[in-house]
């Protein structure tokens, strides 16, 4: 090893023939190394371009105001926020009563909403800021399909959500049932009531630091 090192530093024309190839190997390694570094530098802009279009969200508002005046108890409307379907529902007194039924709570995975799937001001038994208005992002926490709303009827006054893809079930507050595949409750977006008839999605008065990107699963 020391002999080889010596051959690198001593560049005399009379170096021994067996020391020659060693110097060439170093040169070849350095050249190939530099070539690889160059190739990596060249690869950067190509891979970087896959990050997509910059600044296309600049100036785009993240706030969506929803008018509730046309919504009757037991109905829901679907709005789009950040490209996601958001369920806005008005609950009947029967639905609210059912949400607190101990028999139901036993069948749910997270009845107290302990897992962070909602802003702090919606971590309650009705998973919303006012009990009679429910707002949820309609994306099943199993594999991302949109659950369908089973509106409350005379026979079944509680109302619930059924996912068409793999049979996941949620109650009308978006809480997942234990005997179905979806692991978490439906996400709740940040919501503020601006009047009795209007609510604002994208802003939470009760939890201003809430970021939808930080919930357990969307």
């Amino acid at each position: 090893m020391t002999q080889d090192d010596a051959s690198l530093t001593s560049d005399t024309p009379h170096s021994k023939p067996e020391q020659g190839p060693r110097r060439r190997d170093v040169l070849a390694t350095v050249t190939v190394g530099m070539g690889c570094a160059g190739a990596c530098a060249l690869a950067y802009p190509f891979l970087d371009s896959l990050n997509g279009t910059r600044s296309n969200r600049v100036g785009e508002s993240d706030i969506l105001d929803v008018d509730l005046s046309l919504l009757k108890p037991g109905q829901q409307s679907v709005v789009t926020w950040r490209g996601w379907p958001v369920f806005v529902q008005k609950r009947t007194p029967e639905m609210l009563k059912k949400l607190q039924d101990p028999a139901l709570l036993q069948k749910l995975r997270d009845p107290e909403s302990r897992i962070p799937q909602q802003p702090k001001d919606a971590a309650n038994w009705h998973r919303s800021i006012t009990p009679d208005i429910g707002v949820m992002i309609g994306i099943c926490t199993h594999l991302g399909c949109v659950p369908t709303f089973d509106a409350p009827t005379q026979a079944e006054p509680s109302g619930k959500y059924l996912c068409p893809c793999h049979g996941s079930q949620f109650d009308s507050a978006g809480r997942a049932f234990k005997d179905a595949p979806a692991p978490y409750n439906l996400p709740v977006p940040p919501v503020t009531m601006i009047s009795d008839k209007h609510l604002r999605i994208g802003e939470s008065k009760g939890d201003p630091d809430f970021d939808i990107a930080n919930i357990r699963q969307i």
Partner: protein
Amino acid sequence: MTERPQSVSTWLNTRLPILSAFRREYVEFSMPRNLNYLWNFGAFAVVSLTLLILSGIFLALNYTPTLADAFSSVETIDRQVASGWLIRSVHMGGVSMLFAALYVHIARSLYYGSYKAPRELVWLTGLGLLLLVMITAFAGYVLPWGQMSYWGATVVVNAVNTVPLVGKPLASWLLGGEGLGNVALHRLFVLHFVTAFSIIGVIVLHVATLHVTGSNNPTGKDLTEPDQTVPFHPYYTTKDGLGLCLFLLVYAALIFFAPDFLTLSDNYVQANPLITPSDITPEWYFAPFYAILRAVPSKLGGLILATGSIVILFALPWLDSSTIRSARFRPWLRVALPLLFLAFLALGLAGMSPPSPFWLWISRAAVAYWYVYFLGLLPMIARREQASRRKEHF
């Protein structure tokens, strides 16, 4: 029979001998030892083509081939796609570097007689590549849908229309019947891709034919002694490598310091069928042919002479009957051929300049010389050389 553990490379090579083929063709392959740096330009062309295809794929990810969105999608690539400006610069600079490399590569073949027996197929496949590159470059130039794209395409479409009998139906059929519209733009986008990838296939043919005969050399003489050749690696990998470093240096300078040096500002104005830009200039690599088109006072005549100037090259191996390859040993050619190169450069300059009587006559003289050289001068010089050779043998 004893069973010994095989290495992975032996296992692979006995089933698919790519390793030994690579060794035979790119490591041990015997090359003339006297090649000069003009023999680097084929490697330059391959490298610039590789970068063009790579950058082209990434541009295509963000490009939309519709009249409504083509221009703005290119602007988005330049301004908003991460590193998009750099990828587009690599692509635009790459075209110029590829054409520059090809023109030098072809000039070298002309000077050292690399088109002659037994390398006629190398020459013919090479010319096929030139045509494919030209078609690809034209189709690609239309895609940004700027003013120069649109009017360049208009002129070419109308040139095809002038071909008697077949021209009009052919152009209408190729463009999908509605002139330069959505259908045409989409087809040009597909054409740009298809020809770009076919070029790779033809390069394989070009290199395969070259490896059958081996490289020509500056003396043009067949190599007979073993000590006249050296293995490709490390001798020509290092020589090509050094040349490549210099080539990439120029390429990088073009991309980083002068990305707009070779493009026209008019092409950053969206195509407008109602206004033709006041001075139409083609890209420099098409300028010589554009100058021919402009120099001939007849629509069809100009088209025939411009395309003929390339078509005539296909006949070159049979127009030049001399058995001497290199111009080093052809005193008459050493005068006549540089004049041909000068004529090509003059046509290029004429094509880039605004039309004036001076440039008009320069281009006419240059076109005339181009044809006189190939059809008169070269065959005559060849016959004289063969005659004096026969005399020597007596």
